[in-house]
C-alpha cells in the first residue's frame, strides 16, 4: 500500500484542522470501504485521519420523538441496540444485514453514508426516514444530502457527526443481494409516519438512492402494493454484469412490494 501519514485526533476541531493541513486528506471511520479501495490502489491519500478516538460519536439515544445515532456507531451496535429495535426497526434490520458479521463489527453508519456507495444499504434508510444529517459544521436534510455516484453535500473537510431520525410509526428494509459482494442489488427502505405518510427509498438500482413517488402516493392514499403502477419515475437504472436495467427496475417493484407488505403485516399484528 502507498505510504501515508496516519493521524489520530481526539476532537472534531483537531480532526478538521488535520484534514485541511494536507491536500490529499481522507477521513477514516470503520474503513470497510476505504481500506479495500486503498489496497487496490484506487485511492491513495497522503494523510488518513482516523476518527475513532474522538469521544461521543457512537452514542445511540432517544430524545423526545427523535432517535439520534452517532456517526461512528458500528453496524453491530445499531443492529443490537434496543432503542433502534423498538423505534427504528427497519434500521436495525438494515444494519444487521450489511456485509457480514466481521464487517458489521467495524463498519459505521457515518462511513457508509459519507461514502454514498450506490449499492450501500444505509442511504436508503437516511432518505426513507427523512433523517437529518449532522456534521461538524451544520445540519443537512436527507433530501439535500445525496448528490450522485459517491457524491454528497459534504464540503471539503466536513465530517459527519450523527443522524437524527424522527420516530416513525413503522419502518422496514428488504434487500436483494448481489451475492458476490453482499451489497444490495436492490434494497428498499419503507417507512410510515404517525400521520400515515409513506416513504419508499431505493438503493442499489441506480447511481444513487431515490424515492419512488408513484408508490408513496398510492400508499398515502390508503392503497397497497397491488395498486402500485407498472411504471415509476426514477434516475436511470444501473446496468452491469449483476443485473440489467430491466431486471433492476423489476426488482424495485418486487422488493418494494415485499417491504411494504411486510411493514403493513407487522403493523397489523401490533394492533
Amino acid at each position, binding site marked *: 500500500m502507498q505510504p501515508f*501519514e496516519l493521524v489520530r485526533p481526539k476532537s472534531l476541531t483537531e480532526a478538521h484542522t488535520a484534514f485541511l493541513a494536507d491536500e490529499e486528506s481522507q477521513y477514516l471511520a470503520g*474503513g470497510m470501504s476505504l481500506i479495500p479501495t486503498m*489496497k487496490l490502489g484506487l485511492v491513495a491519500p497522503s494523510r488518513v485521519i482516523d476518527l475513532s478516538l474522538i469521544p461521543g460519536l457512537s452514542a445511540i439515544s432517544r430524545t423526545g420523538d427523535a432517535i439520534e445515532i452517532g456517526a461512528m456507531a458500528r453496524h453491530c451496535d445499531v443492529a443490537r441496540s434496543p432503542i433502534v429495535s423498538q423505534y427504528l426497526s427497519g434500521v436495525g434490520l438494515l444494519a444487521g444485514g450489511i456485509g*457480514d*458479521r466481521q464487517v458489521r463489527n467495524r463498519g459505521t453508519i457515518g462511513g457508509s453514508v459519507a461514502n454514498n456507495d450506490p449499492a450501500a444499504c444505509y442511504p436508503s434508510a437516511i432518505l426513507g426516514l427523512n433523517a437529518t444529517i449532522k456534521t461538524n459544521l451544520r445540519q443537512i436534510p436527507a433530501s439535500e444530502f445525496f448528490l450522485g455516484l459517491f457524491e454528497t453535500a459534504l464540503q471539503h473537510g466536513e465530517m459527519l457527526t450523527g443522524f437524527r431520525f424522527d420516530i416513525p410509526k413503522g419502518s422496514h428494509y428488504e434487500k436483494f443481494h448481489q451475492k458476490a459482494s453482499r451489497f444490495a442489488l436492490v434494497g428498499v427502505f419503507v417507512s410510515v409516519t404517525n400521520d400515515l405518510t409513506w416513504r419508499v427509498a431505493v438503493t442499489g438500482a441506480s447511481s444513487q438512492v431515490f424515492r419512488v413517488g408513484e408508490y408513496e402516493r398510492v400508499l398515502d392514499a390508503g392503497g397497497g402494493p397491488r395498486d402500485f403502477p407498472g411504471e415509476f419515475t426514477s434516475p436511470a437504472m444501473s446496468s452491469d454484469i449483476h443485473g440489467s436495467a430491466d431486471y433492476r427496475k423489476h426488482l424495485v417493484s418486487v422488493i418494494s412490494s415485499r417491504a411494504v407488505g411486510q411493514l403493513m403485516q407487522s403493523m397489523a399484528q401490533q394492533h
Partner: protein
Amino acid sequence: MSEKICVSMRVNGEPICRDVSHEMLLAEFIRNELRLTGLHVGCDTSQCGACTILMDGDAVKSCTIFAPLADGTSITTIEGVAETPAGRAVVTAFHECHGLQCGFCTPGFVLSVVELVTKTSSIDETEARQAVEGNICRCTGYHNIVRAIMQAQSELAGA
C-alpha cells in the same frame, strides 16, 4: 511526521509493543512482525475472512484494519484460541466434525465461529449458515463446518 507509530496491545495474552509504519495492516503486523503465521490472507477485498481474528472479543478482518488502530486492544489469533473454553470447544468440534481440509481458511473460520458461539445461543443450522457469510471455504462445502458450529454450541450450552 514520524515514520513509525508505537502500538501496544495484548496478543494471545502477551503484551506487545512495537513501532510500525503508518500504513501497515494489522494482518501484516501479525504475520510479518509477530510471525504468527496461522493468520492467513486469502483476498484483498474483505470477502474471504481468512484473516479473521478476535479484537476485544469482536471477530474482525485484520486485512482491513490499520495496525496502529489496534493500539490498546486485546487480540486473539488461532495460536491462542484454545486458551478459552469457547475456543477449545470450537477447535475440538472442527476436528471431530472434519470441518477443515486444506486448513487455509480454517484459522479465520475458527475465530469467527468462536465469536458466534460466544455471543449467540441456540441458533439453528440456517442461522449458522447466514452467520458465517463473512468466511469463504473452498474445500468443505460448509456442511461439516455447520455441524461443527452446532456441536460447539451444544458443548458450550452443556458446560
